């Protein structure tokens, strides 16, 4: 019975991530258009909302290229290894006050740990392409993602310390409004590190499609490439939902359906802000990226943790 329920949750999570990615790509093209003084997709449906209905079948009907010399099974299934952990991480998001699909006592650690398996999929896909440039792109991605996990985890820890629990539903239950000013720096660090973690601009060195030509997925075409894109958007959705729940209280504002709507609405605003940042800031250089992580974000997160710890002791 619980197995069936888990299966249903899994399907729902994949649907949420894939559907969210489809809507997200359309929304991103509209946001990018507005920022660059254009309109974005317009022709299919009102304001081009059905643009993705054309893009997805097109990618499905594209040729599925496996390059010469590639490690066939690894090349084919590595995208799934990138997508699956990110879809799994949605399981611990507390959508409802006191309820999450997987209400684990180590939910926060789950959310931080499971997506890190995706790095492995990226490295494997880079290595399996049998392409020097892909390999270098994969190493760039791995270095960035492993490094940015540190400030991200430290930033989340400040909320964990305040709530005294690793369970997301308990954290949202214990949430108080004054946590927001107290953990504002931590939230900022979390957002920046999450953006770097999902390989989006201004930290999209692993992709950098206009300069470095798409790093580790350079040799993927058609739907396998779309899976990488879906993983990126899925990780953005998951990070926004989880950050809203932990730092801003998320579903704890109102009881019932109103809470869910407000929660998802705020998460959508955060997603829009992430897109805004991508289309506004220029891309960082690789060494600046790593320096920024270790000399700015990590100390900031540590200070935030110290402050939160002091307050937690003082209370």
């Amino acid at each position, binding site marked *: 019975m619980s197995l069936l329920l888990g299966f249903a949750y899994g399907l729902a999570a994949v649907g949420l991530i894939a559907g969210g990615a489809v809507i997200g790509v359309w929304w991103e093209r509209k946001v990018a258009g507005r920022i660059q003084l254009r309109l974005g997709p317009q022709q299919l449906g009102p304001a081009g909302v059905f643009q993705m209905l054309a893009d997805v079948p097109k990618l499905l009907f594209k040729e599925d290229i496996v390059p010469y010399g590639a490690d066939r099974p690894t090349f084919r299934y590595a995208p799934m290894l990138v997508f699956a952990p990110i879809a799994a991480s949605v399981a611990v998001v507390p959508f409802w006050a006191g309820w999450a699909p997987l209400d684990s*006592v180590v939910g926060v650690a789950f959310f931080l740990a499971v997506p890190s398996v995706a790095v492995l999929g990226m490295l494997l896909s880079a290595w399996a392409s*049998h392409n020097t440039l892909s390999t270098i792109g994969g190493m760039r991605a791995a270095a960035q993602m492993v490094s940015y996990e540190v400030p991200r985890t430290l930033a989340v820890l400040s909320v964990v310390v305040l709530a005294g629990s690793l369970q997301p539903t308990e954290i949202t239950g214990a949430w108080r409004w004054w946590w927001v000013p107290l953990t504002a720096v931590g939230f900022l660090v979390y957002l920046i590190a999450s953006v770097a973690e999902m390989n989006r601009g201004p930290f999209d060195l692993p992709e950098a499609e206009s300069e470095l030509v798409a790093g580790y997925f350079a040799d993927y075409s058609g739907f396998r490439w779309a899976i990488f894109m879906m993983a990126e958007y899925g990780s953005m959705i998951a990070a926004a939902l989880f950050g809203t729940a932990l730092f801003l209280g998320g579903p704890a504002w109102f009881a019932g359906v109103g809470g869910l709507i407000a929660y998802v609405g705020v998460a959508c605003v955060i997603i829009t802000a992430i897109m805004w940042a991508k289309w506004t800031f220029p891309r960082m250089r690789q060494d600046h990226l790593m320096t920024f992580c270790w000399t700015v974000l990590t100390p900031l997160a540590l200070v935030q943790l110290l402050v939160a710890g002091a307050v937690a002791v003082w209370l």
Partner: protein
Amino acid sequence: MSASDITLAAAVAAMIAGAAGTALTRDVTRLVVSLGAFLLSVAAIFLIVASSLLAIAQVFVYVGGVLVLVLFALMVVHRDTDERVGLDSLHDIGAAAVAVAVFAGLVALLLPLAGTTGSQTRALPNDIGAFLLGDGVVAFEIAGVLLLVALLAVLVVVKGGEDR
């Protein structure tokens, strides 16, 4: 035999399969995938018998950290070879005999100990935290110092390699 026993048996089987793959495969990616399967099934066993925090730590540290490092090192070392890399090994009777002997010894030694049934409860994260900052605080701090030393050691080793 209950459902959890079956899950446990499956996890143990996956663990042995992963270990065998790590020992026998000749391909770099197969080695990494096997090692990943091994580490994940270890996490599954931890989840079933001991504690969810331990399982998550295993995934975080090993799969997300150590395994990525292993793959990273493999990619650095074999970067300039053009054909697919083969990992050769020197199979011989002696090594197999030693391994079998160790296995037999371990089973003979440990199986009598495992006969008694102990507590079946799993540890909560709070209990583990209370232990680590209570009775185990010395070990905890030493581990922290060791991590710092390891961090410095890695920096020194890699920097030294660059200077040479």
